[in-house]
């Protein structure tokens, strides 16, 4: 597959608009809560799917993902924001536990070699909960009308302690 990292990064960061909104309530299926929406690139018309998954038994195990969904059906999972489900680095001697929120991102070099697009997750401190991850995700993938359906994530700061 002929794709560059710039192509993948552009698909992730291009401004998108929700065209098929999420359900009002998450759907519980197969031991997890699921929801999602369809978005389109406002400039080029590229189509994307966003999924959200939260494990019922262990809600800290969550994933929010962006899938590129082109007309030819060659879907590609571009980005996943994961919760603290366990170690993300290759397991090292000593078995030290380090559960961190982390990001899986598609890499062109893997796609070019016919591998699954993403490699090891990169730990992040940008969020510490599912709601924070969802908020960060919606901003990072530039969904311009996210407040229409996820307005509860946009909590204003109280002016406490400010002069």
């Amino acid at each position, binding site marked *: 597959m002929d794709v560059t990292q710039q192509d993948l990064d552009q698909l992730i960061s291009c401004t998108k608009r929700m065209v*098929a909104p999420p359900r009002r309530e998450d759907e519980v299926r197969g*031991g*997890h809560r699921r929801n999602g929406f*369809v978005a389109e690139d406002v400039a080029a018309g590229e189509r994307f799917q966003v999924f959200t998954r939260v494990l019922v038994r262990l809600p800290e195990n969550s994933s929010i993902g962006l899938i590129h969904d082109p007309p030819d059906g060659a879907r590609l999972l571009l980005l996943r924001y994961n919760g603290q489900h*366990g170690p*993300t680095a290759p*397991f090292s001697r000593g078995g*030290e*536990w380090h559960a961190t929120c982390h990001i899986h991102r598609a890499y062109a070099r893997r796609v070019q070699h016919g591998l699954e697009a993403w490699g090891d997750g990169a730990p992040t401190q940008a969020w510490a909960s599912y709601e924070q991850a969802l908020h960060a995700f919606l901003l990072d993938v530039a969904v311009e009308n996210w407040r229409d359906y996820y307005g509860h994530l946009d909590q204003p700061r109280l002016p406490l302690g400010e002069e």
Partner: protein
Amino acid sequence: MAMDYAETLSQEFGSFVATRQRRPDLVQILLPFQHEDGDLVDVFVEQTDEGRPVRLTDAGMTLMRLSYYCDTEAPGRANVIERIARQAGVDSSEGVLTLDLATDDLYPSLMQFVQAVTRVSSVKVFRREVVRSLFYEQLRDFVHDELRDLSPSQNVVPLPGRPELEVDYELVLPGQRPVYLFGVRDQAKARLAAVCCSEFLRSDLRFVSCIVHEEFDSLTKRDRDLVTNLADKQFTDLAEFRLHGRRWIGRCA
């Protein structure tokens, strides 16, 4: 001096095992087995109040990961997953893989369970890479082989000046309305077929539309409603079209 592999492995394995108490009755076992994205294979031990292990479980993580790529509860896929799990000796119920511990030997059950998780996880590769590439080819072969007496034409544009409204196959019966056949395997194609049908109807074309799905249930409800309200006939999968397609064409067109 020759290496004592058994002794070495026995000692090393202990270095690569760890646990984490996730809930009062649930312990995560950390093993050096990873998915392609580096995330560890999810294995948990359910234990009694006294701390005795009774069951291995994935807590639903395997199917949740699979659901990123496909509808794990679509009839075809759900059956495949259950069969793979059963063949690997684990239970699959309500989205959770489990293996009850019959004895106090945790290690062999653990290895069996990890193997089952990786085999079920590989379903996404098989379904996505192999089956996806076959649907349109299989439809094409059937149309050209079994329906050749209907003079099939491929990639037909019924409305001049509207090349974007393309029909996969036009089938012709003498003296009857042509059948416009669409193969649909994903949301984009479903919507394109719906748009085509809608525009052809608005233009008062004389035709009968037929949609053959790869997997009807894989579409969202909204898209299923869309094509159902516009198409004259749908076949929920290729197997149904092979069985009943010719007879329907002869009756309705």
